[in-house]
């Protein structure tokens, strides 16, 4: 459970999991029977989980876009994606 995510993994939102911007609630992740607020960097991370991009590329992209150390982006993304993977909402 919650093991580190390899740089070569290609995270993808599972079918039935949708990221969308809601006019009242901001960015949200819709999933079976539940909805999560995608706060802070979460929406940026999830928007890149398209099943083609690698985790390493995702980290590099966001690190450049927001001028944040890659270690910090990786820690945030790993915590988020590991939690969603354990809930079967993200496939790696």
């Amino acid at each position, binding site marked *: *459970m919650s093991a580190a995510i390899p740089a070569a993994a290609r995270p993808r939102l*599972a*079918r*039935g*999991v*949708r990221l*969308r911007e*809601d006019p*009242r*609630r901001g960015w*949200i992740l*819709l999933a*079976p*029977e539940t*909805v999560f607020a995608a706060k802070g960097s979460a929406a940026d991370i999830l928007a890149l989980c398209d099943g083609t991009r690698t985790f390493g590329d995702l980290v590099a992209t966001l690190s450049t876009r927001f001028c944040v150390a890659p270690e910090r982006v990786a820690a945030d993304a790993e915590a988020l994606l590991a939690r969603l*993977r*354990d*809930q*079967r909402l993200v496939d790696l």
Partner: protein
Amino acid sequence: MTPAPVGLLAELTHRCPLACPYCSNPLDLDPKRNELDTAAWQRVFAEAAGLGVLHVHLSGGEPAARPDLEALVATCAANTLYSNLITSGIGLSPARITALAAAGLDHVQLSIQHADAAPADRIAGYRGAAARKAEVARAVVAAGLPLTVNVVLHRANLEAVAEIAALAERMGARRLELAHAQYYGWGLANRAALQGPRAKVLAAVREVEGLKARYAGRLVIDHVLPDYFARHPKACMGGWGRRSLNVTPSGKVLPCHGAERIPGLDVWSVADHALGDIWTSSPAFNAFRGTSWMQEPCASCPRREVDFGGCRCQALALAGDARATDPVCVYSPKRAEIDRLLSQEAQAPPPYRYRARV
């Protein structure tokens, strides 16, 4: 200002081929001739999206009994509503499942009754149901749709939870919902047949908690606890008129499944009002919204915004007053009534009173 609702339960029909004794539909079922037509449901969904609803739960009865199900799914998708099909599976051919997926269906929640076919069919009151459901699960997974398996737990399947979890995983489900029976509608009429002996209920609760850990990362298990055994009531519907709307087959809009049973509740219909007006202004939604309607011990309770006094329908059924504290609560003066019901463990359960067919 009233916050926007998150979910809408669309009871498209009360017709169902199954006759499960714990069915949450009311005892007075809507006949087919009273059902909203396609255009009326499409208007409801468009208004729901405008109101801020995110999830639409297409339910029944059996929603597949409606030949316009595909069109209704497409309307949800066109309004960026997340569509969840809550089905017995009966009436869903592989071709229909493919068509629903193409129309934009987001998720399927398939009910099963037991891990073994014979008791499953007996509970459902439908011969061959279990075999049909296995075929439906295969078609759902083949269509690429995410599958949740949903099981109501009661006396006849409490001891099969491990086999049920194994079956759900074999079916390809990502989620398994294990919900202990709640006693409303047909469930209340069948309480004596459904309620398991205390020791077995508590053993099943422990076993499911163990299964959650064992299946972690493979099958997510949601466990809805048996509320008669709780110390505090459930926050029914997340609070009255706070998160959800329930539209009946004939278009009445309720804060929950059972609300029609509450006497004196002025329920509005989508035939007469826009959904947004019903949400904010209908007397039924405002009757128990917030905390100002509460009596003691709820009114001064520190938990009043945690569980919102519990369930109004249960308060009515067991305490005789929809404004009373849910009698499940340890602070309720009527808690003894729950304990009395729990102590009445039928030695031999009575036969099921199967749900009526319409």
